[in-house]
């Protein structure tokens, strides 16, 4: 086994979530059940899904992410910063400063506020949608 490129593309949490949901779905639907034939895959997929479902990416869709990326173009953020904005969905200035390096020099306070409002506008709040889901399942 040789590693051609150990650092290829970086994936967002949402993409991994979708992939793993597909993997688990395949297992139940037919072909060969992965829980019996591939125990390693089944257990890591289950644990990772459980973790990801607690994060912000649960309620995201690819259109939402696309629109968000379009809207933050003007801030000239690095790839890693945009990725973390999507993964973590920061809503306070402290969190913003943490994610964006040297944010004091690169962004004014108004820009930070604008970025937060863009995050809140485009990326859905998982706690809000969870409530809806909870009600649906309760009924």
């Amino acid at each position, binding site marked *: *086994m*040789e*590693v*051609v*490129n*150990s*650092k*290829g*593309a*970086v*994936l*967002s*949490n949402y*993409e*991994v979530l979708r*992939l*793993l949901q597909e*993997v688990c779905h395949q297992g139940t639907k037919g*072909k*060969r059940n*992965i829980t019996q*034939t*591939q125990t*390693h*895959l089944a*257990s*890591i*997929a289950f*644990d*990772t899904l*459980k*973790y990801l479902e607690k*994060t912000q990416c649960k309620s995201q869709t690819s259109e939402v992410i696309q629109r968000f990326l379009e809207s933050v173009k003007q801030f000239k953020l690095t790839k*890693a910063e945009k990725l*973390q904005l999507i*993964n*973590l969905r920061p*809503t*306070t*200035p*402290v*969190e913003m*400063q*943490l*994610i964006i*390096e040297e944010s004091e020099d690169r962004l004014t306070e108004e820009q930070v*506020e604008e970025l*937060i409002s863009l995050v809140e506008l485009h990326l859905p709040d998982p706690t809000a949608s969870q409530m809806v889901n909870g009600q649906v399942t309760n009924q």
Partner: protein
Amino acid sequence: MFQLAEIRHMVRIPPWLFGQTLNDAVIEELNRKLANKVVLNVGLCIALFDVTSLGDSYIFPGDGASHTRVTFRYVVFRPFMEEILEGVIKAADADGMHVSLGFYDDVYIRRDSMMTNSRYDETERSWVWDYKIEDDLHHLYMDIGERIRFRVVAEQFTDTTPAGPNLAEGENTVADRKDGKVPYIIYGAINDQGLGLVSWWTSNSAGQEEEEEMEEVEVGETS
């Protein structure tokens, strides 16, 4: 936190998988080989992303299996340096804290990468951040089971393949873990504004418009 690693490998497909299409058999074998394992200097393998190229299959004398050279991309857990992650505190001792992400358990936050004025409380068996604001001292406890946000500051891969044939018996991975050989360790830091327990910084939504100093006041109040 997740990346794609491009790997080339000669996949051995045993005869009992010949009933499936080559593609399905390759996917199954790759997932069986790599899922939930750490590859040295690559990261913790999660699941196959896609197969980029499939070579010719060969049958070698004396072996009923077919061998195919495959290039594929695999989803691996490997956070980049300075990435911010969230996890749950699993254990604490005088040297630092042990954080779990659910699917990955080997995150360590050492005592020297915590906030200043942090100390280990022997009676509570947890770390405490003594936060001082206007002559008021607040004890912010970091209890086991709490959600914690940290910054990745270092990673360490260890080759856990057995050294000699005498070690090659039994459950190596289990034995290695007992010897303190962990294949992939991430070191985290919580010594910055916004790091530490998630609940410290999201205490109250009213603070969003306030400046950083106001945030700190709120933190003090909730403790």
